């Protein structure tokens, strides 16, 4: 966090000065490790073992926050009799199909929940193929609001007992064996985490792509969620799980998504084969209880925002105008489609896949096979110049004169040259003013899409197929000579308005009858009272502890999600020290420094009447209001593609055997078995070293925003790898010299930094060396400095839920000296591929 989020890390430093104990668990000793109380080196790709052992520590020592767990989680809920755990099946859950490599999740359901036909179930085939579970970040899969339960937690089929059995083999010994963390260090961590949880104290977890970019990435986060729920650390001040983002407003770009499978506000993209009309879609996507029960209002308001008066009840609000998924349209399948000639055109906006995505060669082969490519960026990134300077030109795999791709480079405005919002990881929207006009032809993204849309609309006729575009509301006011669209008008549209055009104040005002429009239901209220709430900047010294008047947080300006859980079931604060949102019986409402993430006047004693829908179906003691049962899910009965409980699987390319189960890797992981994407065999002696990629404070992602700047470039001028003294000794690597890193994809050369910060780990009773590689360099990119592309080493193997690539744990070989050039490079890699 100090390394990649130094500004945010100031608060950690402040907390430390106030006595907070901070642990850093990471394969590499970074600036963060230097600034904490205890650093634990861990083998890349083994975190679920550690988290599982913490869960086991909590459960087997009875350290869970029992009142919280009983009242607010699904610990007591009974699970289907047919369910079989990894304990029973040596690393597999019930429902696995060897042939397809997919799970049928129906046996994972709660007792009494009727599994649907497999085809259409959430988590089922079509669903999984289109990364359906990606949307559960906020949505929650459908499950019964009141499943059978056993409050004594003794029924062997209750979640609590299943959990206990599932994690019983995650012992400190396994942590030592697989993570390389000695038992005394584990004990220190476990004691700190449990001692700092409960009524009086809370513990927070902070993670970044070191947890997500794995073939089991989603389950890493799930494991942390289970731990936090067991310890009562969700919905309370100082608790939670914080995702550190890789760019400014990455949170914003999932809220108003740039993802193929989502519509604004985590509404699922309709699927061509799972959904017919609006009613069918609404019936299949999500449950009727909890706040998702209002999804008709969210979806209809979105359709009204997009198609305005053209969207009416009679035409299903033009639900038919929405594009439909037919399967996986994610980044990597798009690239394979390019190589196969199925994808002809490509927009790349503020991204640099030729350097930033796994298996750079496949990326560039795809780019070279396009008809046209639009790149919008601040500088001519490698993705725009691959046709003349890609490594494949040097090796002869590509020839400039044979590449037919027409590249359009559109210079973009920087963040200070345009206005708009950033949404940070705390869901906080902060408005930025424009400081100056962008130079020359540089334009904001808003300008680009607005005017592109206008030009396309001009060229379209009245054919039915054109109507989804011609009937779009596309009437943003234009400002100044450059006709920059008014960004506040867009924010107003996102906020939504009622039938009279008045800005909505809250998402509760959204109507399912077409009388309201709203571009993103979770952002509803950001323009309440016609005021740009995201532009508020009252200093924290002049307001309460939750700083409600700094920017605006979705939903409804709530700063801590599920904060009903900060009070006990009766609505009283768990403790004076951790008092936050609580029930004031006199006023008959929830009060506290934050906006309650709960109906303000729903009493703790509220019991939902039979057949109640949406939020009304949740009791006054159900804080997790987006879930169908209002509970925090220790166990996920539906929605995930690779199992209801996090389970340790080795990375696809691992140097280590999975000693927890017979099953080596995530059985549901996505592999792309093609010539362009060869894999290192697991446990291969040809690739004995573990590598992980990383970032540095001095650079930003692929370097497009930092390598062209001399002030940043000089601070980390060359691509390098960090290795331990022992590994350097073993291989004859010299500090300041060169190393060649080889995988089945390619070989790259990096400068060597020999450092005591990297230590060999003892894993499975043998020594495992790790190579740490920052990935900020590329072959061009308008940079004053260049270097080999680290992500060229990586393979495309994906988490089955969200299709993130496994770039944080791979295997490689390391040779001293520089890599061969040209044809000789291909020969070297070829030799490695075939042993």
């Amino acid at each position, binding site marked *: 966090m100090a390394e990649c989020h130094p500004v945010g890390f100031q608060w950690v430093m402040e907390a430390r000065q106030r006595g907070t104990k901070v642990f850093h668990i990471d394969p590499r000793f970074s600036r963060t490790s230097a600034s904490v109380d205890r650093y634990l080196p861990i083998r890349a790709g083994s975190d679920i073992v550690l988290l599982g052992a913490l869960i086991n520590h909590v459960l087997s020592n009875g350290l869970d926050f029992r009142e919280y767990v009983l009242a607010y989680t699904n610990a007591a809920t009974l699970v289907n009799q047919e369910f079989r755990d990894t304990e029973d099946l040596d690393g597999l859950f019930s429902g696995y199909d060897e042939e397809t490599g997919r799970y049928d999740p129906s046996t994972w359901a709660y007792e009494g929940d009727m599994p649907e036909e497999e085809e259409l179930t959430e988590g089922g085939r079509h669903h999984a193929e289109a990364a359906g579970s990606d949307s559960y970040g906020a949505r929650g899969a459908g499950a019964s609001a009141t499943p059978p339960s056993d409050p004594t937690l003794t029924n062997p089929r209750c979640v609590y007992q299943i959990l206990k059995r599932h994690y019983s083999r995650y012992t400190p010994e396994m942590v030592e064996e697989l993570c390389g963390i000695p038992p005394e260090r584990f004990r220190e961590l476990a004691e700190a985490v449990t001692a700092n949880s409960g009524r009086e104290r809370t513990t927070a977890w902070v993670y970044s792509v070191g947890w997500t970019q794995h073939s089991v990435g989603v389950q890493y986060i799930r494991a942390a969620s289970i731990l936090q729920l067991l310890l009562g650390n969700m919905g309370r001040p100082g608790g939670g799980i914080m995702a550190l983002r890789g760019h400014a407003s990455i949170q914003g770009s999932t809220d108003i998504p740039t993802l193929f499978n989502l519509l604004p506000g985590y509404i699922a993209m309709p699927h061509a084969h799972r959904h017919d009309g609006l009613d069918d879609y609404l019936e299949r996507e999500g449950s009727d209880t909890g706040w998702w029960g209002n999804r008709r209002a969210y979806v209809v308001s979105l359709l009204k925002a997009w198609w305005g008066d053209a969207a009416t009840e009679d035409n299903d609000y033009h639900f038919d105008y929405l594009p439909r998924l037919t399967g996986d349209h994610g980044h990597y399948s798009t690239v394979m489609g390019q190589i196969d000639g199925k994808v002809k055109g490509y927009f790349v906006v503020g991204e640099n896949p030729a350097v930033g995505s796994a298996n750079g060669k496949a990326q560039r082969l795809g780019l070279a096979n396009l008809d046209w490519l639009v790149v919008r960026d601040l500088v001519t990134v490698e993705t725009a110049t691959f046709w003349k300077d890609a490594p494949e030109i040097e090796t002869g795999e590509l020839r400039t004169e044979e590449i037919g791709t027409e590249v359009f480079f559109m210079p973009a405005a920087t963040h200070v040259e345009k206005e708009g919002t950033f949404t940070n990881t705390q869901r906080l929207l902060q408005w930025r003013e424009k400081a100056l006009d962008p130079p020359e032809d540089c334009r904001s993204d808003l300008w680009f899409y607005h005017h592109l849309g206008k030009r396309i609309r001009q060229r379209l006729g009245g054919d039915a197929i054109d109507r989804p575009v011609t009937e779009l509301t596309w009437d943003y006011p234009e400002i100044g000579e450059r006709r920059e669209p008014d960004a506040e008008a867009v924010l107003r549209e996102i906020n939504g308005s009622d039938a009279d055009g008045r800005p909505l104040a809250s998402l509760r005002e959204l109507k399912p009858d077409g009388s309201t429009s709203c571009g993103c239901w979770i952002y509803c209220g950001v323009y309440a009272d016609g005021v740009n709430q995201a532009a508020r900047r009252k200093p924290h010294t002049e307001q309460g502890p939750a700083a409600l008047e700094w920017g605006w947080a979705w939903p409804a300006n709530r700063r801590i999600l599920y904060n009903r859980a900060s009070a006990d079931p009766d609505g009283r604060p768990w403790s004076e020290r951790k008092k936050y949102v609580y029930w004031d019986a006199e006023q008959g409402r929830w009060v506290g420094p934050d906006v309650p993430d709960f109906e303000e006047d729903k009493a703790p004693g509220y019991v939902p009447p039979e057949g109640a829908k949406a939020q009304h179906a949740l009791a006054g003691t159900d804080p997790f209001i987006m879930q169908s049962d209002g509970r925090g899910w220790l166990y996920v009965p539906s929605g995930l593609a690779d199992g209801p409980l996090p389970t340790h699987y080795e990375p696809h390319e691992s140097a280590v055997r999975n000693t927890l189960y017979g099953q080596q890797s995530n059985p549901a992981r996505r592999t792309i078995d093609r010539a362009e994407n060869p894999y290192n065999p697991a446990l291969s002696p040809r690739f004995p070293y573990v590598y992980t990629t990383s970032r540095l404070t001095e650079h930003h992602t692929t370097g497009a925003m930092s390598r062209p700047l001399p002030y940043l470039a000089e601070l980390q*001028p060359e691509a390098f790898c960090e290795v331990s003294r022992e590994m350097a000794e073993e291989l004859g690597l010299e500090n300041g010299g060169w190393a060649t890193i080889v995988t089945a994809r390619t070989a790259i050369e990096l400068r060597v930094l020999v450092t005591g910060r990297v230590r060999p780990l003892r894993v499975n009773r043998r020594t495992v060396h790790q190579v740490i590689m920052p990935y900020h360099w590329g072959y061009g990119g308008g940079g004053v400095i260049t270097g080999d592309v680290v992500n060229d080493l990586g393979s495309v193997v994906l988490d089955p839920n969200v299709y993130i690539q496994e770039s944080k744990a791979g295997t490689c070989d390391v040779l001293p000296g520089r890599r061969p050039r040209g044809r000789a490079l291909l020969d070297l890699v070829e030799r490695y591929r075939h042993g």
Partner: protein
Amino acid sequence: MAEQRMGFFTDTTVCIGCKACEVACKEWNDVPDDGFVFRATSYDNTGSLGASTWRHVAFVEQDGRWLMMSDVCKHCTHAACLDVCPTGALFRTEFDTVVVQPDVCNGCGYCVPACPYGVIDRREDDGRAWKCTLCYDRLRGGMEPACAKACPTKSIQFGPLDELRERAQERVERLHAEGMTDARLYGESPDNGVGGTGAFFLLMDEPETYGLPPDPVVTTRDLPAMWRWAGGAALALAAGVAVCFAGRKP
């Protein structure tokens, strides 16, 4: 005129090595880049303070810890660079800081080896001496220096020197109480060899580990003695010449 002496207290125990100070300094003061060299000295690729690096973050790798420290001109009470500057290009400001006037500096370079901390240096291309100005222009405008402004963890603290010294003393005492007995202040004492520095530090190891002199002296402290020895030599020279002529008739 400011009544108070202004300075920096750099608390290395909270430095996270982000180098924002280096970059902010260059942005504000329009300092050119210092070359693109991979030095293989931990995460330090600028090496040391110099004509084109006025804040420099040192990275010291030790067993189990990684010390980081943002170095800067010390703005000494008795500043050798200022003392020895023959042109008056270096001067003491109303904030009791030491600043080079680039329009007066003639590039004689004498200040360069005079500095006991190796701070000031001459730029090869323009031939003049440059160093930290403690953002003299910003101070005059009532703002804090760019590095202190950019520091996310308050490792670089700017303020009246008296207050900073007090704060630093408290901080060291607290760290000692917490068992961090390595903590020590560097440069704050008016009794040291430069009469105390306007920019002082809280270090976690011996100063030389960070590339700092353990017990620097302002070289001009000994200037009277030097002149006395030189005077003696001059007299001896005159006498010697006289002796050579003595008794020799033309």
